[in-house]
């Protein structure tokens, strides 16, 4: 997926959100740390322009301490800050329509952990999921995606990475044969 396609996809996703949530009065975008926030930051900025509203409800959620692979993987993942200081005060998400945003939906375990985390902040009215890439045949949990950028059908061992440019706008999606190939490519820069 090149920059041009990615740009088109992002703007389609934004318009879908506007169609469903209009002015976002009771909705809230939440990017998942660490990778999902690159996507949510971009969507957030585009939505601000489209809706002409600079104070859209937006947060970032870290679910490190809720992961189901803690103490099973070789190295723990460092925690990232959670930012959920919406106008809701002590109960920022109670009764809201939450849109969780992540870059790649693969096994569904990440989203499951994010949901567990979310419930410790309150009781949302509804939770929807937006991902740029949906690897629909690799799911390990019954989790589905409401807004999809692109569907990728690949083998279990394949690795999809979204590479964002530092300018905060463009980026591209790359499909690697396996995780090692992705790491190798990342090291080469």
């Amino acid at each position, binding site marked *: 997926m090149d920059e041009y396609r990615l740009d088109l996809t992002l703007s389609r996703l934004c318009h879908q959100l506007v169609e469903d949530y209009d002015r976002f009065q009771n909705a809230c975008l939440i990017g998942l740390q660490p990778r999902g926030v690159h996507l949510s930051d971009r969507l957030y900025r585009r939505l601000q322009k489209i809706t002409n509203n600079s104070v859209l409800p937006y947060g970032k959620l*870290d679910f*490190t*301490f*809720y992961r189901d692979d*803690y*103490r099973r993987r*070789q*190295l*723990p*993942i*460092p*925690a*990232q*800050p*959670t930012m959920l200081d919406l106008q809701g005060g*002590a*109960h920022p998400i109670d009764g809201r329509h939450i849109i969780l945003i992540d870059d790649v939906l693969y096994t569904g375990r990440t989203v499951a952990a994010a949901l*567990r985390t979310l419930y*410790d*902040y*309150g009781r949302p009215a509804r939770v929807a999921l937006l991902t740029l890439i949906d690897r629909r045949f690799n799911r390990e949990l019954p989790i589905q995606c409401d807004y999809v950028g692109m569907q990728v059908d690949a083998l279990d061992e394949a690795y999809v990475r979204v590479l964002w440019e530092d300018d905060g706008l463009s980026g591209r999606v790359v499909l690697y044969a396996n995780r090692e190939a992705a790491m190798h490519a990342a090291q080469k820069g």
Partner: protein
Amino acid sequence: MDKLMAQQQLSTRHLLGIKNLTREDIELIFHTAQSFKHIINRPVKKTPSLRDITIANLFFEHSTRTRISFELAEKRLSADVINFSAASSSVKKGETLLDTVNNILSMKVDMVVIRHPAPGAPHFLARHINAHIINAGDGTHEHPTQALLDAFSIREKLGTLQGKRIAIFGDILHSRVALSNILCLRKLGAQVRVCGPPTLIPKHIDALGVEVSYDVRASLRWCDVANVLRIQLERQHIKYFPSLREYSQYFGIHKALLDELDKPILIMHPGPINRGVEITSDVADSEHSIILDQVENGVAIRMAVLYLLASHRRL
């Protein structure tokens, strides 16, 4: 940020003392504690991370803050907790430390938090026992989590520790808080000075890279942060100074001393406070004091330490 990503795990399986930690370890603990501080300020203050872990708190010495703080940290990480205090146990019947702990461990305990009057007791356990050991104070030796939360609290207020001036006042000789603090602050690049009566300052302490002063007024003028320690009468078997009243006059921190300063200063105290001895009430409760912030940060720091140690796979 990227530098932090490089290290994701502590270099040690136990927290025996600051001595065994690297600067990167300390930064990682602070980074993790930051997230836990956010969590303990939520309506739901728990995370499920340590659901499958059982922790024994073995306190062979009296404690309020540290024990409650560890217990809260453990519960907020969803660990199962057993508490043990020497006063009401079979230690009184003559059981050895190793036997006591081995018996507790055979009930499937994964981590041990220990406070003991003998320096080196946690190190001894770490050598003989297959569990993560956390030192919650061993005699006059080290008290690592206290030093971590002190440094964390200073960093929170001043932004960094690099180049900052921290003075530690009081009974340096008997204080495990002082030793751990000195090691921790030095590793983080702060300048450290100790100040107290000559009898309560250990010989050769300058080998740790600290300055020594016997002048409270000059030291207060010098420092950005004053960490005031308690006189540990329970460890003093001879007289080190004539009377508490005299100590308080010459080495106590009182309001008039602070009023002379024309600069901001942070006042810290690891507790318990002996009001009117090392510090007067009007100083302990003044706007300079961050004593209660220290206590709050204590829970976050201990959660971070427990979480990071538990992430090591079992041997």
